[in-house]
């Protein structure tokens, strides 16, 4: 007997189906076209001289020898570019009191981190440009550098920005009330301090840009390895005084981004200016060594936390302080305080308690900027919360699952809000918790752990509940005055052959945007997916939109495509009704045919409607103008965010002699609402988990006392590789958001959000027999041995 038919058995029902990505075949054949591959006629290459000092005054620049080198076309200093580019400042209005120094493409007289670009050379090849760099001499007068996070906060320390009053960029606090009372009445109070190291995205394709200014037409075309082309169209237009419509930003294949490729970098701004100065295309690709010192870094927090718990293990209150260092200035245009802000707002998010107090201090230091990177703030908030919950569970004498079951917001409580003010439409912590217990086979793992422990093998089990912010509304950046769109746009056309092209503002970096948009459009229009072409990443041909950040591709981009496709379908049916002398409501589209709703019988191919509309409009009734291209925009309304939730589990082994940690198995249960392509969701989750595991165990930007990055290469900075990574079991719960027709929420950051929290809990679980505890991430072998007092 065959299984019952489901909605997926209808033709063209692609939503919910694991179909492979059409564009991936090209990449598999080595036919990707990344910005690093682009070569334009008369193109020149830029390279940058970088400062070795973390903080210094520039007292002299000597560039004549470099200018004289054969093949060099331009040597530009900060002053040269300042003449044509207006400065930018990375603050947002709604972060009251936030400060940051204005930035220019290249500095005029002072450098603020080791590795900052100081002078640009443009030459016929990158090699010649690099030769020329060696002929430049810059005199520096070294200034005291502020390197350490805690030192930077102390009064009387040298100032990163000498005209500022302190090294504080921003301070804020939250207080939902009755915190002190809750602590006074608590049966148990748990206190802990955490520290999180800096890490950096290490996208495999480095940052890359080709700027092409045509002085005759005044038009600027920028091929930019970015996830947000519209944002850069706006920025290049405004800072270089070019009409927005004359600026085109093209983001072709992008070799990874994870938030790193949406910030403004000095070199990228400079390259646009260099092209304007020369009237020729200029290319710049950061090499890996440059990436380490100039891509954004992320995290870098010290958190103090307290939790009040009653005798039964019910959480009563939390009180936290997060100090985070962001480098010498705040990034533009999103700022560097969003991470800290999200840390204090996400702490405790899965749990039902009322009294919460938090303080955030964001401080400057002489290091490269930190900013938004996959799962902004989430891993910090999750690690702090989940470790505190485990410590509380141990104090009360509850199993970690039982502790969470007692404290998560119950699935029947929605809609509800967190004490920090996040409004939750519908989350599914309880069902996720039960599912995780099942897929882990928790009781068997505990039995195995106990058995091995008797033989001197120390395994740990860690779980972590999480909430992920997705589908942000204009309340995210718009209210702060940033020109960052929370809406997306799509233009959908029926071609004369009855196929569809959809130009959409959400962009593709490998996560499968083009595939899922194609699935949605084909599904809604009743066409085969191979007849739907998706176009992304070009401001000249796609409507304006926010593009890809904060997991908005499916939830916002997908909904935009869905609504656009429905509009086009209505227009197609209107023409079909005229041709067939029917009511539009009596018709539908199935598998490329206009069909009768009543009988399901095909009446006429969609391609025939298209042919008539485009080539034989004379046969349509007078006054008919076929609208077979529709443009549509969609911005989220209703809840300010759609929250994804879930839970992860981790099983690992700690070698107590060497401190090495072996990951054995990882588990994820998550609820991202309507799933469009389960395979792509699974792979997003796995990729995200592995990124989080790297952060948990390996990745740390280590600095020397003078502010030099000591491990700035792929030989020294450890990233997760295939050998160290476990297999990852994934299960889904589907609670669609009622705010959209599609019902999708994001999933791209869910994996990263909870992975380090899980590992932290699992390592501490493994170390339990030794009474040792670790609260620093990454958890390196040396730190494990230190916790064990063996180092």
């Amino acid at each position, binding site marked *: 007997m065959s299984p019952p038919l489901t909605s997926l058995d209808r033709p063209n029902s692609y939503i919910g189906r694991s179909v*492979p*990505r059409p564009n*991936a*075949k090209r*990449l*598999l*054949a*080595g*036919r*990707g*076209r*990344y910005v*690093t*591959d682009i*070569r334009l006629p008369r193109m020149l290459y830029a390279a940058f001289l970088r400062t070795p000092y973390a903080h210094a005054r520039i007292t002299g620049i000597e560039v*004549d*020898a470099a200018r*004289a*080198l*054969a*093949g060099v076309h331009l040597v530009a200093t900060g002053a040269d570019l300042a003449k044509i580019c207006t400065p930018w400042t990375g603050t947002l209005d709604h972060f009251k009191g936030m400060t940051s120094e204005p930035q220019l493409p290249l500095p005029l007289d002072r450098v603020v981190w080791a590795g900052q670009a100081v002078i640009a050379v443009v030459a016929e090849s990158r*090699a*010649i440009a690099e*030769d020329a760099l060696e*002929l430049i001499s810059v005199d520096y007068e070294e200034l005291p550098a502020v390197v350490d996070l805690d030192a930077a906060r102390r009064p009387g320390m040298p100032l990163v920005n000498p005209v500022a009053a302190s090294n504080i960029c921003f301070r804020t606090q939250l207080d939902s009330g009755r915190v002190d009372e809750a602590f006074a009445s608590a049966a148990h109070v748990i206190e802990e301090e955490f520290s999180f190291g800096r890490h950096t*995205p*290490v*996208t*495999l*394709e*480095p940052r890359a840009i080709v700027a092409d200014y045509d002085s005759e037409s005044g038009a600027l075309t920028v091929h930019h390895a970015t996830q947000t082309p519209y944002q850069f169209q706006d920025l290049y237009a405004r800072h270089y005084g070019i009409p927005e419509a004359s600026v085109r930003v093209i983001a072709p*294949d*992008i*070799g*990874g981004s*994870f938030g790193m490729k949406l910030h403004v970098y000095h070199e990228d701004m400079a390259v646009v200016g260099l092209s304007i100065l020369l009237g020729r295309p200029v290319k710049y690709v950061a*090499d*890996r060594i440059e990436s380490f010192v100039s891509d954004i870094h992320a995290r870098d927090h010290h958190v103090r936390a307290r939790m009040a718990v009653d005798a039964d293990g019910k959480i009563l209150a939390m009180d936290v302080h997060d100090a985070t260092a962001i480098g010498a200035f705040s990034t533009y245009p999103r700022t560097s305080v969003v991470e800290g802000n999200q840390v204090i707002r996400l702490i405790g998010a899965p749990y039902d308690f009322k009294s919460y107090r938090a303080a955030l201090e964001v401080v400057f230091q002489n290091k490269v900027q930190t900013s938004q990177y996959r799962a902004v703030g989430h891993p910090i908030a999750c690690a702090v919360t989940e470790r505190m919950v485990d410590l509380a569970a141990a104090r009360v004498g509850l199993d970690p699952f039982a502790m969470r079951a007692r404290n998560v917001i119950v699935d029947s409580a929605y809609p509800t809000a967190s004490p920090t003010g996040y409004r939750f439409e519908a989350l599914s912590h309880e069902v996720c918790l039960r599912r995780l217990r099942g897929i882990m086979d928790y009781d068997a793992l505990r039995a195995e752990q106990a058995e091995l422990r008797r033989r001197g093998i120390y395994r740990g089990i860690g779980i972590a509940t999480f909430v992920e912010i997705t589908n942000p509304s204009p309340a995210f950046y718009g209210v702060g005055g940033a020109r960052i769109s929370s809406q997306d746009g799509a233009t959908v056309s029926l071609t004369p052959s009855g196929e569809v092209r959809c130009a959409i503002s959400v962009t593709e*970096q*490998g*996560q*499968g945007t083009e595939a899922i948009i194609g699935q949605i459009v084909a599904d809604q229009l009743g066409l085969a997916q191979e007849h739907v072409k998706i176009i992304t990443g070009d401001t000249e041909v796609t409507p304006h939109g926010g593009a890809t950040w904060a997991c908005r591709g499916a939830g916002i981009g997908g909904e935009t495509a869905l609504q656009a496709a429905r509009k086009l379908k209505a227009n197609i049916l209107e023409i079909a009704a005229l041709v067939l002398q029917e009511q539009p409501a009596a018709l539908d589209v199935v598998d490329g045919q206009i069909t009768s709703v009543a009988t399901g019988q095909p009446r006429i191919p969609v391609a025939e409607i298209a042919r008539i509309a485009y080539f034989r409009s004379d046969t349509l009734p007078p006054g008919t103008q076929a609208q077979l291209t529709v443009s549509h925009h969609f911005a989220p309304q209703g809840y300010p965010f759609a929250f994804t939730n879930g839970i992860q589990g981790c099983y690992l082994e700690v070698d107590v002699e060497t401190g090495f940690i072996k990951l054995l198995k990882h588990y994820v249960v998550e609820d991202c609402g309507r799933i469009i392509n389960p*395979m*792509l969701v699974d*792979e997003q*989750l*796995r*990729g995200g988990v*592995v*990124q989080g595991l790297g952060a948990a165990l390996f990745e740390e930007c280590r600095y020397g006392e003078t502010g030099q990055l000591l491990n700035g*290469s*792929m*030989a020294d900075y450890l*990233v997760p*590789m*295939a*050998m160290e*990574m476990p*297999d*990852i079991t994934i299960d889904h719960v589907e609670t669609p958001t009622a705010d959209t027709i599609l019902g999708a929420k994001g999933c791209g950051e869910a994996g990263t959000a909870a992975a380090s929290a899980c590992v932290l809990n699992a390592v501490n679980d493994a170390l339990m027999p030794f009474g040792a505890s670790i609260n620093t991430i990454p958890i390196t072998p040396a730190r494990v041995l230190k916790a064990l007092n063996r180092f």
Partner: protein
Amino acid sequence: MSPPVDIETEEQVRIRLIVNGRKVACDVAPRDTLVDCLRQQLELTGTHAGCEMGACGACLVQLDGAAVHGCLMFAVQADGARIDTIEGLSESGVIADLQAEFHRRNALQCGFCTPGMLITAHELLTHVARPSRETIRDALSGNFCRCTGYEAIVDAIAAVAAARAATASQGAEGSSP
């Protein structure tokens, strides 16, 4: 005014290679790496540069049938060699089953690591017919991927190994008397 500087490294050396089955001659500077030569002179951009220090595997190509890092070799050192890049391996069809399986399982996201992954997989399966997952993971230990969780890549390689082994045993049965 400083005098113009002459750069010795601008000198060009002519090298001859067989790239993807075709004889080519390139004029390269002694400091150009093999990956520079492939990407810039021959416009074979499928070979990527991720770290230029032998740590990421994005630049792997086959030199006389063995995988080498294009970033760790000067172009002049490859003079006279046979080089196969992702483009050539794709066109000849020798890795078509690997590519199809990677596609089917979405064993790639941005695709920047993918040519190097495929070359490692191809080399592994040439030497080991039925590698364990552990062996596959070990073989991939020089290929960095920031996007995937590696698992789908391991699954794809294991599936191709199994399929090839099945075909081989059928072939063997067919040929037995």
